[in-house]
């Protein structure tokens, strides 16, 4: 296999969620930490769309922000094109930054309301010194047309556009530095469905046209199903399963993946009988011992409550579960032993 474009190794992120120092001293409390991302490892090959799926508290947005450098990692390595970004000198990092970009969730917050659209799109061009003056203007016009807007829109302000058009502007901006890799953090979850379809189609067209690699973050399995080539499922900061998109939906391995699939409403009215979903996501400050999913898991066993299941390869990819590793009998003997 060719060298992956992005490789994340043993990534951790802890947040200090303690009360202010003075309160802590007076109330005699220990500092509290929240582990948002725990030991996450995955690879993204050139030209593919790797999706991270998870519910709130799964750490998917934290991973996205660490990859693009908005947040530091507590531990672990992020290799972009073979270079470890966590250990790179500032000058080299700057050169690397041009090659990746991010599309944010809320198109009403991701564009500075006081800037003209032209300036918003040109900011990466100017900051990286790729183009200035008339050249930058021409490029902005071309980018606007690429995403289905008009070159004349550069003169306008963001509030003159609808949510979908704003997301197009955000995409034009992300494309302006000619990146190879784009992190898309819930790019359509703030949009209406008919507009979501436009944006998803546009993103796929752009991928084909420019050979882009996407890291696609979403909580919506149907959207992920449509966009991704490979999928990683996160639960409370840990990667519980990765698989090729098609096989993940056909043969989900991890019990949590199965539960997520069962929770998706059945729009085809196929009358598919689903297992009722139970329980809620635990508080990430005090996650359950052993496998974090064990309180909700239908296959739970004694061992799951004590030991953290290591990721192991499955027929379809990777899963971190005792029940999916080998056959059930093995788990049971292990549990009683």
């Amino acid at each position, binding site marked *: 296999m060719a060298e992956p474009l992005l490789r994340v190794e043993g990534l951790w992120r802890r947040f200090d969620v303690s009360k202010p120092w003075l309160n802590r001293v007076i109330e005699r409390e220990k500092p509290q930490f929240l582990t948002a991302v725990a030991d996450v490892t995955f690879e993204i090959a050139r030209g593919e769309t790797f999706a991270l799926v998870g*519910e*709130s508290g799964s750490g998917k947005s934290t991973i996205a922000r660490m990859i693009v450098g908005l947040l530091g990692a507590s531990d672990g390595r992020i290799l972009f094109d073979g270079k470890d970004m966590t250990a790179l000198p500032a000058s080299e990092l700057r050169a690397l930054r041009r090659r990746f970009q991010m599309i944010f969730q809320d198109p009403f917050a991701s564009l500075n309301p006081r800037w003209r659209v032209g300036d918003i799109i040109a900011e990466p061009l100017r900051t990286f010194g790729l183009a200035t003056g008339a050249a930058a203007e021409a490029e902005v016009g071309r980018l606007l047309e690429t995403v289905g807007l008009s070159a004349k829109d550069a003169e306008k302000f963001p509030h003159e556009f*609808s*949510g*979908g*058009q704003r997301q197009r502007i955000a995409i034009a901006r992300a494309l302006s530095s000619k990146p190879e890799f784009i992190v898309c953090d819930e790019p359509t979850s703030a949009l*209406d*469905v*008919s*507009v*979501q*379809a*436009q944006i*998803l*189609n546009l993103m*796929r067209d752009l991928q084909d046209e420019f050979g882009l690699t996407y890291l696609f973050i979403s*909580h*919506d*399995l*149907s*959207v992920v*199903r*449509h966009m991704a080539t490979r999928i990683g499922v996160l639960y409370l900061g840990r990667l519980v399963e990765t698989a090729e998109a098609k096989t993940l*939906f056909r043969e989900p391995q991890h019990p949590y993946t199965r*539960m*997520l*699939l*069962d*929770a*998706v*409403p*059945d*729009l*085809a*009215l*196929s009358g598919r009988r*689903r297992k*009722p*979903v*139970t*329980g*809620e*996501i635990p508080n990430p400050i005090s996650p359950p011992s052993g496998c974090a999913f064990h309180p909700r898991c239908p296959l739970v066993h004694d061992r799951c409550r004590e030991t953290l299941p290591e990721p192991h390869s499955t027929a379809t990819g990777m899963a971190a579960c005792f029940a999916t590793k080998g056959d059930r009998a093995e788990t049971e003997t292990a549990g009683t032993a």
Partner: protein
Amino acid sequence: MTEPLLSVRDLRVEFPTRRGTLTALDGVSFDIMPGEVLGMVGESGAGKSLTGAAIIGLLEPPGRIAGGEIRLRGERIDILSPDAMRRIRGKRIGMVFQDPLTSLNPLYTIARQLTETIRTHLPLSEADARQRAIALLDRVGIPAAARRIDDYPHHFSGGMRQRVVIALALCAEPELVIADEPTTALDVSVQAQIIDLIKEICAERGAAVMLITHDMGVIAETADRVAVLYAGRLAEIGKVKDVILDARHPYTKGLMGSIPTLTQESDRLVQIPGAMPRLSAIPQGCAFNPRCPEVFARCFVERPEPVKIESGRQVSCWIEEWKVGHG
């Protein structure tokens, strides 16, 4: 045929602004039968939440009902005094909103909020009201309800709070529950539980539900019939199965095609070009005409009224009108 529980006729809601009056709902008519779940679906700005607010008399000023009528069991409720309307809210119509925190007072315990509501509407003693509240909490799936009833809203997780709100909406045995995006703020796995709960518990108590949501999936799972709103007008209404599997209005067709599903294999989603018009710029004729793939001359001139194409199915489209007229 039985009498509808709720009957809305030609509802028109206007917002006077300094640039003229905006018509946010225009000629919306539908019925909800006793015990029925009616889904109300549309994109943001289509007027689905406004419809709910107009029914319960909670339109935000300067919005006002400018025409039409709303009847609850035959009695007009759109012209009631605010005081009389308040007695209907909570008692005969229960409400569940998107954000459970807006329905719960953070300063009071769950017990106090539930028993107060119960005693406002039902002649029960404090102790009886508390017993009833505990039974309700238990029914909506709050574990250890007898103990947790004395907790405050912030002690509960988002999903649990929404369960409390559902208990609150149902505590006076209403005939109708209006649920406005009840699952939008929740996680996927919790969402499914809440949908199931609303459906079950209302069926059990014979309460009808008006379920307002942007999510066609939620409608498909829950509703008996669905009304599709576009730019403040009713595009299509009918049985969920009919509308989802055999959409007739070009907007509904586009909407259904644009939703990615777990089973489809196609590379591209159907996309409707453009976006829903702002209320200040609704085109003449059919509001959907700038985006419609099947548009023809008449659509630019005359506005199509809902036409009955089969029992319980209405579509506002000139093409369907023509089909009906020509057999």
